[in-house]
């Protein structure tokens, strides 16, 4: 009765294959088949951003992507943000700036912030707030999140200039 299909894609830099049904979303496959539970489920209708991942470099809410659509795609999740065991500037800035409380929205914010800084290395506060508006946080009031993104942007720019 099951209509499962093999899907191949690149996940956090690695080639990955899995079996899935058409009705399974990318979010479900990441969490329940590939056991990458860092991507969180907050609403399943695209309104909270907790499940944000990068799909061919663009941020998407993985609850509104069918896994079948991901054939040959490049997917990056929160688990792929840190490189070789070293935290990314954004992750460090979240830690140092206390930009998380319960932490459930944090992976989505970090992935979304990464997309922002890749696209716009020097965003204004207003641009940061607009770009992150699809990610809900109920604990922090956003102040420290916005500041962490500002700090990470500054660090990245400093690293680029130095390099």
């Amino acid at each position, binding site marked *: *009765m099951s209509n499962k299909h093999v899907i191949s894609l690149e996940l956090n830099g690695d080639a990955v294959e899995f079996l899935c*049904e058409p*009705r399974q979303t990318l979010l479900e496959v990441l*969490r329940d088949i590939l*056991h*990458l*539970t*860092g*991507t*969180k*489920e*907050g*609403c*399943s*209708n695209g*309104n*909270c951003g*907790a499940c944000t991942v990068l799909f061919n470099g663009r941020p998407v809410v993985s609850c509104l992507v069918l896994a079948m659509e991901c054939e040959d795609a490049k997917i990056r*999740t*929160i*688990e792929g*943000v*840190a490189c070789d065991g070293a*935290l990314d500037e954004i*992750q460090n800035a*979240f*830690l*140092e*700036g*206390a930009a*998380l*409380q*319960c*932490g*459930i*929205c*944090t*992976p989505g914010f*970090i992935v979304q912030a990464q997309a922002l800084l890749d696209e716009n290395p020097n965003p204004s*506060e207003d641009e*940061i*707030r*607009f770009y*992150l*508006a*699809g*990610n*809900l*946080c*109920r*604990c*922090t*009031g*956003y*102040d*420290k*999140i*916005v*500041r962490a993104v500002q700090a990470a942007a500054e660090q990245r720019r400093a690293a680029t200039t130095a390099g």
Partner: protein
Amino acid sequence: MAIADKPQYNVIGTRPIRHDGVDKVTGRAMYGADFRMAGLLHGVIVRSPYAHARIKRIDTAKAAALPGVRAVVTSDDLPQHGARQVDLGEGAVSMRHLAANVLTDDKVLYRGHAVAAVAADNVHIAEEAARLVKVEYEPLPPVLDVRAAMQPDAPILNDDVRTVFAGAPEVNADQPTNIAKHLLFEKGNPQEGFAGADLVFEREFDTTMVHQGYIEPHNATALWNADGKVTVWMSTQGSFTAREQTAELLRLPVSSVKVVPMEIGGGFGGKISVYLPPVAALLSRKSGRPVKVIMSRADVFEATGPTPGSHIRLKLGVTKDGKLNAAEAWVAFEAGAYPGSPVGMACMCVFACYDIPHARVEGFDVCVNKPRTNAYRAPGSTQVAFAIETVVDEICTELGVDPVELRLRNASRKGTQRVDGPTFARIGMEETVEAIKASSHYMSLAPQSRSPDKQCGRGVASGFWFNAGLKSSVTATVNADGTVSLIEGSTDIGGTRTSIAMQLAETLGITAEDVHPTVADTEGIGYTDVTGGSRVTFSTGIAAVRAAEDICSILADRAAALWDVPADQTKYENGGVTGPDGKRISFKELAGKLHLVGGPVTGSGISGEESQSGAFGTHCVDVEVDTETGKVQILRYTIAQDAGTAIHPSYVEGQMQGGVVQGIGWALNEEYWYDEQGMRNATFLDYRMPTCYDVPMIETIIVEVPASNHPYGVRGVGEVPICPPPAAIANAIYQATGVRMRQLPMSPPRLLAELLKS
């Protein structure tokens, strides 16, 4: 801004990186929904589409026959409770009500009410099976408004509810009713008080039901093992209360249930009541497999515990020189389907910021066809703060007194008696007002309008929350490398592992990084009350300090043994033990030698403080009102709050900022939008919580008036920041437009309607 001469601390007041931080920024932290085990089934709850209906028949045959379905349960599978009352820490509650809220029996009382549940091989099959459960309903007229529900001819939700009178005179005590409680507090002689006032203001207020809005949906995985033991892995604010509720609902000895608290994605009071664990456990018993249930977002809105909407009448009498002389309030709260709203706390909070000689408050807990309400950050206080703080602002306008000055003139202080009886110890209400008065925000010019259709204004408001004490347990073990493993039972929602570890570190004279905190399950640590009531850093902190003191005393003995001197000649101080003849050994060095002198060292501490000193905050906000659309933008926001002593200032600021933004949401747009069929906006799209594009940076001023009943002067900080924002924003809207808003939320249509009237 420190008020008293603050002691010098090494760890307290610093900003170490939280211990669980790396796991949470890399996605490794395990939340409830992340838990898995072999053979796991997925459960789905069948819910009522009606706000009020009688269940005539439930047919589960088709659902049970669907391939992949392993179990179906209804209320028939729950033990019967009769009229049993139990106390699960928040006063006596009817077990019938608790059970019926988990799986209802004869009636559904709100849309989303749980009727049955299925478990299947995967969530999709379970969803399909849930669609196949046929429930025959006889719809009944719903009652959705708190005042309508109080009328004698209102539809009655629960046949077994009789009014409980607390302080109020008994009337119709034997009649079925929706009024579950009528309480009355009085101090002084209000009649005389109003007679002695020069001006009397009487106003009415309405607020709608709102939700805590945590991003993580409720979840639970349960395994009913062949030995009769039940284990539950879940997100909860209190693993011990979850265990007690689950055990009581299943009529099991409490020791037969183990709750393993996973990381929790927000709670704010909404993850204390148990909804899923008993159902998951029943499905597990039937299927012989572990069962995981995760609520959808719509379920979270429709079927968990939002906080009550209210109707409030408030009367204040003031003398010409701006002294509040008498106060009266009438407060009716929506309890939701079953009794138990926080109206009692609302009545205790309403006048708490002010020293008013004569006061009287009446409260009503009223059942309506909405989900059973629950705590939400300073439960009950925000609704009444909206009422009193806007009337206080009216008084300021009428008398031409600066809002900060009037508050200083009337502020509660040490010795002020609350309307419900208790007298304040040293508190920091005045200091928070002074802090706002001295802030760069308040001292700056009020914002100027950009154009005629954009009017600006500034508002001020204060708020109060008691802060709970309650019980906590901590154990701590010294490791040979000079670190300490700390075990606690308080689930960590916002960085409390670190604030507890810091207090232990301060007491032992070691660094925060040398303490490794773990939140244990209900079999790994002694009883610990919920993470709520702003109590963890206070009360679990005290337990940690006591555990540290325990260790200090054992280490002093061990050093004595090591040096071969009498035990009364050694003393633990400044991170090590000192002895006779200038002997000194550091904590780290001694830790490495413990195997030579008696072996492992474990300290333990418990706390059971009745209560802690109250917390106060004063806020200042600048708004811009679009007078053609009624939309309000928050331009600038400053909060001053008494934290007693800020253990980790970043997380204190975080609590203040988070509370303010929740308060802004409550003030402007959040509401349960109801029609006869139930809630119509049960999504994050239409239940409009603030995004980061809706708010500015939230400026914080931490005031420190140390509390006398905590070794380091800690006061809880989590709750009071949500109380003042609706009133502060309403007062700013008045300054901008001349319109007084007395309804929450002050959404664009409501504000525009008032603007067009004026």
